[in-house]
């Protein structure tokens, strides 16, 4: 059994809340409250949840773009948060990020060539000639023509910009890519193009992904394992087909049945979930989901359920599945 590429343990992160219209202290946002998971080499790991669940925060914490309050991230057994500036710089070459918004992820004042070659120059990865060759190679790899290097981002469509963003993530030859909703801002047919591209890249380069998304269909297509998040915690984790075909946690069940499926006969199964997503400012006591949970029990209000490893590769945090001694 190979060692995991990435091990995330008990991440906690809070933010001071943005104040209201007239200023003043508005409390703290509990973005992450104990998040743990691990990713194997070459594995596509999905992180799903709705807005406010903390999945984007978790993704950025992994890359140390956000400093968590506590917890650890081990990348190839190296402690990411304990790395000094020099080691961090070297680590950064091995893990990269792809963003959601193709219109904000590229500097409008720089040509594509400049954007892609800059990381290589900063890390001194070759002579200008080698860098130019690498540039052409990576552009070809993401399906962009070589002459794109002289153009500016505004000359490209959303899908093309997303390809360029992916190229930028590949330029330093990372082993892990955190993809934060990489296809959510794209049209349906472009989504498919980008997903096929990412899958090809994953296979050829044996890349690991932390694939953040709210779209279960996309996650099912791309990921092998998935963790479902709600209000800063992982509520269920396991292999994708098992989690989506037979969800254990009531929230996963609700999420799954609320996800529309392009099949008119599947209409009837849409289960309504009453109530709003609770605020991360004031998470409900005990299990955060209890106010909306159709199967809530008295204990759910009192204590947060511990993690139960239901099978070797599947776990859930729910009082319906108490840990057996």
């Amino acid at each position, binding site marked *: 059994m190979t060692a995991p590429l990435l091990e995330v343990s008990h991440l906690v992160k809070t933010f001071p809340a943005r104040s209201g*219209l007239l200023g003043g202290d508005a409390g703290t946002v509990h973005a992450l409250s104990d998040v743990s998971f691990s990713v194997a080499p070459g594995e596509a790991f999905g992180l799903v949840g*709705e*807005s406010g669940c903390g999945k984007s925060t978790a993704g950025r914490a992994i890359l140390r773009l956000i400093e968590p309050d506590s917890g650890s991230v081990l990348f190839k057994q190296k402690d990411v948060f304990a790395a000094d500036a020099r080691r961090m710089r070297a680590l950064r070459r091995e893990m990269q990020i792809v963003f959601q918004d193709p219109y904000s992820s590229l500097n409008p004042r720089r040509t594509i060539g400049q954007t892609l070659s800059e990381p290589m120059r900063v890390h001194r990865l070759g002579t200008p000639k080698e860098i130019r060759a690498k540039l052409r190679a990576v552009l070809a790899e993401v399906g962009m023509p070589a002459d794109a290097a002289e153009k500016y981002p505004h000359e490209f*469509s959303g*899908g093309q910009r997303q390809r360029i963003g992916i190229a930028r993530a590949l330029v330093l030859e990372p082993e892990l890519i955190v993809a934060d909703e990489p296809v959510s801002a794209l*049209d*349906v*047919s*472009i*989504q*498919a*193009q980008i*997903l*096929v591209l990412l899958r090809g890249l994953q296979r050829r380069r044996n890349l690991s992904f932390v694939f953040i998304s*709210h*779209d*279960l*269909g*996309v*996650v*099912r*297509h*791309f990921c092998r394992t998935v963790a479902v998040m709600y209000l800063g915690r992982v509520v269920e984790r396991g292999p994708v*087909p098992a989690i*989506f*075909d037979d969800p254990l946690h009531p929230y996963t069940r*609700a*999420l*799954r*049945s*609320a*996800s*529309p*499926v*392009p*099949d*008119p*006969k*599947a*209409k009837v199964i*849409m*289960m*309504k*979930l*009453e109530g*709003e*997503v609770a605020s991360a400012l004031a998470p409900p006591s005990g299990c955060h989901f209890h106010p909306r949970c159709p199967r809530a029990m008295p204990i759910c209000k009192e204590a947060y359920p511990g993690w139960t490893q239901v099978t070797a590769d599947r776990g859930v945090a729910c009082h319906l599945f108490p840990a057996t001694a």
Partner: protein
Amino acid sequence: MNSAPALVVDRLTTEFRIDGRWHAAIRDVSFTVGRHETLALVGESGCGKSITALSIMRLVPRANGRIASGRVLLDGRDLVQLDEAELEATRGGAIAMIFQEPMTSLNPVLPIGFQVAETLRYHTKLSAAEARAKALALLEHVKIPSARRRFDDYPHQFSGGMRQRVMIAMALACKPQIVLADEPTTALDVTIQAQVLALLAELKAETGMALIFITHNLGVVASIADRVAVMYAGDIVETAPVTTLFERPMHPYTEALLSSIPRVDRDAGDLKPIAGQVPPITAMPAGCRYADRCPLRIERCATRPPLVALPSDPRHEVRCWVRAGEPGASA
């Protein structure tokens, strides 16, 4: 039982002026919406579905856009010919619209109760107190929790899903015959979307109104639509009852679209993305607009195919030489 359609759109063409020349954003769009029917208008960005809705409501920005030709018949009256005063009386009254972005479609400096009541007072002869009472009833009806207490709250104090409910309350306030919903749930989380869609279905069943639901999400279409119209590059390319569309899609674009969607209920097969891009509005081909990307393309596709009903199913129309069952075309 009134079986006349709620709305008839007849060869609607809307143009925009780009760099001094007029280009058609939607061309000859025609469809009918039955009295209690939900018609889904589906397509990707740029296909013209939103422009169609704006054209129906006569909300096309006048600076650069115009309705070039066509009719929109609501109860026999052609909305395209109405003047502004008559239009204002109709909008919000007989025909209402729900927009996509819940954060910008409500006035941020007015309390939500006021905004709902305002709609009522504009279109009906209710007094201020009566309108207020009715507005409160509407808010409770769309299941805003603690509606009485929150009647005077401002939009920013509500979540996205709640704001969308307020919009629905406003749209339904005057019991319109038909409601246009332009991507009303696209910006919402999945579980909230399910709530809002369920609410819309309930309200529709109660009031018997017709609904045009615009979206790019085929899963949502499958859940709520009775009939579907698929748009591509400003044309309607296929119309069919919902089950027929998903089981037997005829237009190559519809087929391709359905095979390129990753599904949560099936294991990952290989996605088949559609190669190429939509042609830009200023450089639209004269013939079939999908021809460049179509695997079934024949010579005839250089001429624009008409939207025709299939011989086997009159309710299923398709705009394609190859698939329309024309004699002499290959299947």
